[in-house]
């Protein structure tokens, strides 16, 4: 089970992760075209600033007991029993923003997206780039601040 980890000391605030994330979730998957799409693609990770720690990127932590699932009134958010990922079904989402309110990390965001031919406001969060081997933000990070690792392995290095 792999997750995105963050080495806070290495963040320079370049926001390459945000850019790569938005491109990954765009229709064209190409930066030069993505900036012309309507609606503009939105990143599911962002770089935050903390007075003590400086800048650092943050995205969905895929909590063991996610508040967002409890708060979701439409049943759009659920936990994948196999991967443990907290995923949102954009078609089911009704845009009530309860998940946005309860997320302790502040990493769920309301945004307009295209679903088929229709534009719709939904809650967006990181799904570790389902189709990719390595999430786009991790690949884009020029300093290695973001890295993608097995949880067990991470525990070992931190033990």
């Amino acid at each position, binding site marked *: 089970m792999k997750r995105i980890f963050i080495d806070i000391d290495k963040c320079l605030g370049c926001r390459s992760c945000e*850019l790569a994330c938005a491109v990954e979730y765009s229709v064209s998957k190409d930066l030069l075209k993505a900036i012309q799409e309507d609606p503009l693609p939105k990143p599911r990770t962002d770089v935050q600033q903390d007075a003590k720690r400086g800048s650092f990127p943050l995205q969905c932590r895929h909590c063991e007991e996610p508040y967002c699932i409890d708060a979701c009134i439409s049943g759009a958010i659920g936990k994948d029993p196999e991967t443990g990922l907290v995923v949102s079904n954009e078609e089911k989402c009704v845009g009530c923003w309860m998940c946005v309110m309860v997320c302790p990390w502040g990493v769920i965001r309301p945004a307009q997206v295209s679903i088929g031919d229709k534009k719709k406001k939904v809650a967006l969060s990181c799904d570790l780039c389902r189709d990719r081997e390595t999430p786009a933000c991790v690949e884009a990070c020029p300093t290695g601040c973001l890295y993608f690792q097995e949880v067990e392995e991470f525990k070992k290095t931190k033990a």
Partner: protein
Amino acid sequence: MARTKERSIDPAAQKMLKRANEEDIMTTWDRYEAMQPQCGFGELGICCRICNMGPCRIDPFGEGPQTGVCGASADTIVARNLARMIAAGAAAHSDHGRDVAHALLMAAQGKAKAYQIKDEEKLKVLAIEYGIKLEGRKKEEIAEELAEKVLSEFGQQHGELRMALRAPKKRVELWRKLGILPRGVDREIVEIMHRTHMGVGNDYRNILMHGLRTALSDGWGGSMIATELSDVLFGSPRPIRGTSNLGVLREDEVNVVVHGHEPTLSDVVVAASQDPELLELARKNGAKGINLAGICCTSNEILMRHGIPVAGNFLQQELALITGAVEVMMVDVQCLMPALADTAGCFHTKLITTSPKCKFPQVTHIQFEEDKAYQIAKEILKLAVENFPNRKKNKVQIPREEENLVAGFTAESVFNFLGGRFRATYRPLNDAIITGRLRGAAGVVGCNNPNICHDYGHIEMTKELIKNDVLVVATGCSAIASAKAGLLQPEAALKYAGKGLQEICETVGIPPVLHVGSCVDNSRILVTLTNVVNEGGLGEDISDLPAAGAAPEWMSEKAISIGFYFVASGVFTIFGTPQPVLGSKNVTRFMCEELEDIVGGKYAFEPDPIKAAHLMIDHINKKRQALKLKPVMYEEVAKKEGELVKA
């Protein structure tokens, strides 16, 4: 396993890339891969580092900041960054021009014995242009006054650059009306730095119009000065045979590779390489002789004047060293990768810097001075000869690829060629276009860049153009790419050119792709276009001509300056990968649409070389229609044949 075929279409380069991979020698391509993904803010041009309230960045997805701390919009930031790139490019070309003018001055004053005035005729033509008295004066006196007058144009504060007045009358009038006729060379560059300083102009159009003016001070100023005075000092090129690609390196000779842009030292190195004393020393050291070869535009300069072989273009600089057969690589200025020092360190190769403007840490520096040029050239060659015994025979791998070429065409020589021996005239060229035997002409120029397969952009585009009866002129690394692909041979016309172009090449005996020199020699293309206009029958201005330009593999700021002076001169110009402007829709629209109504030229960005070639062909067709020219002679034939094949 390095994907060598994705990296270059040149078999010699592929072989060296394979070797680099086997021996763990890092090349540009590896560093390019390691750099992925590259910063999107930089790519879009929306990062501003101009003042200490920043760095600032615009969010291209519309949520984050849309202005910098000072309030600068994406339009302002993109325009300022781009203008500064134009300034850097124009500075590089123009400083090169200044150095040539300085060498001419020293030669005229008798202070630089290694140089003579080789083209007296051109000296006189230029002297007349500059209003210099000829009667009863020695060529040295004339040259001294010319050099001084030209040098004063760099610091000129008002008035108009002399050579810019060569442009067609209508064009000069337009520049005057728009207020973009350059006043001096250095002044325009300085003014860009001022205008883009924190808190000065923030109207993107106004910033970029000055960018056009600065670019013109390069193309019709610094670069043109470099070209013209090089011709006076080193001789005007005439069509000359030569060879190209890494196969020009010799196993049994001392190999000296000259790399960079300025011909001042390398031209003397050519003479010194024949020095009996050095040749004797070479024999003593077990070598059969001294073999000179070039990379980049220094190479183009000595190729077209002396027929010195070309080892390769920009992306082959490291690969030449990876042959293990280079005793000395001597560099001057521009397009020199800092990585050369490490690559040279993998072999016995000595890297030598020669310009006070360009030193590498821990690399031997032998400073070039005009008054001691021959002595310095000999000193460098001696180091090379003495280094020959250090070459490890078992480490030498020279690819066999070596292609013949004809180079050395200029605004004067090539079309005199077309005029035949009766009269130097552009008439046959104009007639060929008017009758539709030729569709038009295109310049394919510029660098290499690992962001596109090496040489692929140049060669695919060039082949597509000549196939459609468009005569191609090439400079710089594009010309070298064509050379290596065999396109600079008259026989190439039979193989690759359309029927009309083929007929012309056969009649006159020229290749379908004309090598017109180094990157400062893009100024030769400006003069050629002007001569075509003046010859008559194809409109009154450069923007009327069925012509287009492209830099399919561009990478340097010099390329941006070149692009802008072509656009400002009225030429439709295509860059492969986009310039860093797409972060501003307004700037992009200004460059790719609005400029056409203002100066007659505009940009397009198209990374696919075939699609880009067709954009050029469509543009040429549009211009032919506007001039009410006859249909292209063999178009119908080609169409019918195509239909038959389909049926």
